[in-house]
């Protein structure tokens, strides 16, 4: 019984991780940049979600607004911060990204206040009873179903739409793709838009789960998402999804059984280091 509950908790957490980490993988696959500031966009999504829901009362509108606004901000981040650094060694962009992330956390604290925000009326607060006392919250169902739908739609589009094919071509070989008439700049913008929008949706969902957003809600997510994409084998989408789910489940079991030894957030990295020692290219990475 406990096992079922822990597994479900793990899957809920894993779905959130998957939504966040997917954007990071998209950026890494295309530009070879470890985009730490991605988690700042996740936080921004959470804030926009709560503010729009409180103002208008509509959660759907909030999710759409968060996705679009944050998507645009993501494109601006690429244009202003990363594009000029593409010719530099990769650690330069990484440090710039970490700096950008810390600066955004501080900005959120100054703009939205240090204490965080909550929903005035929390949407989807109920739950259903499945069997003997086992509860599943509506929010948890929403989280799992939304990530399944979003990820399958994206997967389908990347395989069958013109833009998806152009995107995959650019990831495989940018100069060849360009020779075939793909506009690389557009692909990059689209990449940042989709990745950031996914992070924003994850932000809204986390805000729903906790009924709370705060300036630092991205800190743990940012480093953990990095661990996830490294674990999956940098740039591998399937690897990222697998790693996200695995980590979600491992964490929910680990907190119960290893909690006295090591705290929850360090667990991800312990697992990461163990895997990297055996498979330096990550779970599903190419050698």
């Amino acid at each position, binding site marked *: 019984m406990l096992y079922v509950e822990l597994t479900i908790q793990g899957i809920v957490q894993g779905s959130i991780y998957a939504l966040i980490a997917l954007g990071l993988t998209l950026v890494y696959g295309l530009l*070879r940049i*470890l985009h730490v500031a991605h988690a700042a966009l996740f936080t921004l999504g959470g804030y926009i979600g709560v503010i729009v829901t409180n103002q208008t009362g509509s959660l759907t509108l909030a999710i759409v607004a968060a996705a679009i606004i944050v998507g645009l901000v993501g494109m601006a981040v690429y244009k202003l*911060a990363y594009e*000029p*650094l593409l010719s*530099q*060694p*990769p*650690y*330069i*962009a*990484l*440090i*710039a990204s*970490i*700096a*950008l*992330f*810390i*600066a955004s*956390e*501080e*900005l959120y604290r*100054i703009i939205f206040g240090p204490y965080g925000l909550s929903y005035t009326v929390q949407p989807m607060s109920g739950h259903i009873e499945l069997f003997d006392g086992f509860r599943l919250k509506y929010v948890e169902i929403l989280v799992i179903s939304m990530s399944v739908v979003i990820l399958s739609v994206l997967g389908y589009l990347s395989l069958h739409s013109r833009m998806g094919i152009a995107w995959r071509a650019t990831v495989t070989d940018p100069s060849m793709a360009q020779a075939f008439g793909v506009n690389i700049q557009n692909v990059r913008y689209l990449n940042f838009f989709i990745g950031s929008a996914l992070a924003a949706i994850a932000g809204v969902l986390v805000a729903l789960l906790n009924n709370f957003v705060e300036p630092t809600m991205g800190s743990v997510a940012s*480093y953990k998402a*990095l*661990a996830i994409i*490294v674990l999956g084998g*940098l740039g591998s989408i399937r690897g990222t999804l697998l790693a996200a789910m695995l980590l979600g489940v491992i964490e929910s079991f680990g907190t119960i059984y290893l*909690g*006295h*030894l*090591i*705290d929850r*957030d*360090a*667990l*991800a*990295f*312990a697992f*990461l*280091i163990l895997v*990297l*020692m055996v498979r*330096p290219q*990550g779970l599903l990475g190419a050698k």
Partner: protein
Amino acid sequence: MAYEMTLITTMAISVLFALSLNFISGFCGQISLGHAAFLGTGAYTSAMMTKASIPFLLTLPAAAITAAILGFIIGLTSLRVRHDFLAITTMGTGFLFVGLIRQQEFFGGEIGIAGIPSTGLGREGFMALCIGLAALFAIFSIRVRRSWMGFVYDSIADNEDITRILGINASTYKLIAFVIGTATAGVAGALYAHHFRFIGPDSFGFVESMSVLAMVIVGGIGSTAGVIVSAAVMSVMPLLFQFIDDYKLLLYSALLFFMMRFSPDGLAGLCSRTYDKIRRRRA
């Protein structure tokens, strides 16, 4: 005078710590995002020992050795994973260190260790020790940079595969860099613990790792003089400008971001470029 001495001691410890990272990241090109873990290892080792009334000076080598052992292990992983993978692995080490310390009653857990005994050297003596150690390591760094080993590090940082093709055992040299750099960080940690007389898991977290990396990069990665200047200035800036306290982190991160964006080779690069420009204008 007491306040100035505290400032200078803080500076010297930061310079020593930043130079130790510069040895690994600047010379050998192995970016580490978890260097505070080694500062922490040294600090905890030394603090636990002086609390058991072992003389402070004896704890310095012990702190160096425990940090170096941990550094050797991380160095071994650097032989396995490279570049971005290594950056994340070292970051993971930092989180692992804090995560483990936090759960151990033995190390004071969440609360940390307070009431670390005095060094018995007096304020002046301790300051002189810190300055002396920092200066010693600075001289050592400059000597290494100009030696055969320094050339090997340059070539590993530039292109490890070619170094190997030239018949140089890059793995050994990388391990040496990790051991020297982390042992020095351990010594800096011992000094840190006895300077502030209090340590906790949060003193050695990700923010600390990032700020030391910021010192190295703002100074100019690999440049000993640049790192000394930036570490000295950046370590006392928050103390001198108490009034900007609320915006401190924002200011730091903005500074770091703009440095990366407009002068990725740091102060040292900025200076040498300005110098070149002036000379060209004169010619």
